[in-house]
């Protein structure tokens, strides 16, 4: 784990540069395909940047939610393996 962290931190600036380059490329090239007839995508560069920023935040939120749900699922599986989710047959009642 420590080796992995150090490897990532050494290469962090290069990775960040690659991600920024990809985002800039996508910002400028892909929406141009949709400008044949009526403009069906925001034209102003600032509006496009806001759209892509929102999309990135949206994906981060989805990934976060998936991680939380997977943790919940692992908890449920663990409880089921332990067998503590089922009630015992001869459990005493408080009558």
């Amino acid at each position, binding site marked *: 784990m420590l080796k*992995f962290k150090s490897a990532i931190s050494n290469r962090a600036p290069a990775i960040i540069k690659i991600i920024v380059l990809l985002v800039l490329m*996508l910002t400028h090239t*892909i*929406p141009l*395909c*949709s400008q*044949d*007839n*009526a*403009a*069906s*995508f*925001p034209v102003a560069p600032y509006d496009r940047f806001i*759209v*892509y920023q929102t*999309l990135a935040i*949206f*994906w981060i939120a*989805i990934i976060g*939610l*998936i991680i939380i*749900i*997977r943790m*919940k*699922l692992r908890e*449920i*599986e663990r409880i*089921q393996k332990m067998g503590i989710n089922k009630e015992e047959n001869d459990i005493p009642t408080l009558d």
Partner: protein
Amino acid sequence: MIYQRFNNRFKELCNLKNIKTFAVKKTGGIALFLFIIQFITGMVLSFYYIPYFEQAHKSIVDIVTKLNMGWFFRSFHHWGAQLIMATLFIHTFSVLLSKSYKKPKDLLWFSGFVLLGISIFFGLSGYLLVWDEKAFAAVKVATGGAGSIPIAGVFIKSFLRGGIDVTGETLTRFHAFHVSILPVITIFLVCIHILLVQYHVISMPLSIKKRANQMPFFPYRFYKYLIICLIVLGIAVTLATFFPPEIGKKADPLAPAPENVKPEWYFLFLFQTLKLFPGEIIGLNGEMIAVAVISSGILFLFLIPFFDRRTGPKIKHTVFTWIGIVYTIYFIVMTVMGFLS
């Protein structure tokens, strides 16, 4: 360690049994989720859409250019429809290949098949609402093709078009189908379909049920479905953002059809099949024979539970396995050929 985890997960995903389970069981849930998304985005769009032929195209342009995030809702609605169609075709063909249409699940097959037909008509009716050149030409061809059905074709064509030709009446009629009639029928059939699924799970022999369904739906399966729905939502939003659909020029009923116009991808296999037949066959109209052949093929598929009567999970029927494979390959090959031509 992380690499090993990813490797194990990748092997798990590529396991044929898991793919089969996903294709048969999970795609139905994905389609239901996408239908709900379509209802929501459709309701939002219907606030601003004007279903009159003189203003329909302009209202779409106004939604996309003047309304805040209007372009996104339209794009999301478009891509939601594409993903529903893809999911439904995967679901239908996987049920066909895994022979899950056999008794007692034949009613499930019938309700599902009708739902597939309704979804295709949803797509066609929604496509016309843009009222651009491509949509006009596509609906003209589609309704014209329906008119070639023997006996009932003329009635079906005039019922769909609201007259002899595609006019403003057709737009009003398709809007009524898309916004009121089809949603009501869809909700009714989806409820029946889900109830039948639950009934067949409940009525399964206990020995099989204990092995298959050790976990109740809530919370275990619910959370698994939630993960899949979140991923599907992310894919739909990404496609809607990067590939918004274009709006063509306003339709002119008097102008000729644009060159190289093609229908939507889920009609391409029909389009290519029509191209295979010559104009005249033994003195008869080639188009009518083509439509008759296609209709009988679809009817055979619909009634397949009556033909494949061998029941039981381990009883094989090689002929019907090959029929399923032929149908699947034919659909894929013809769709790809339609794209490339």
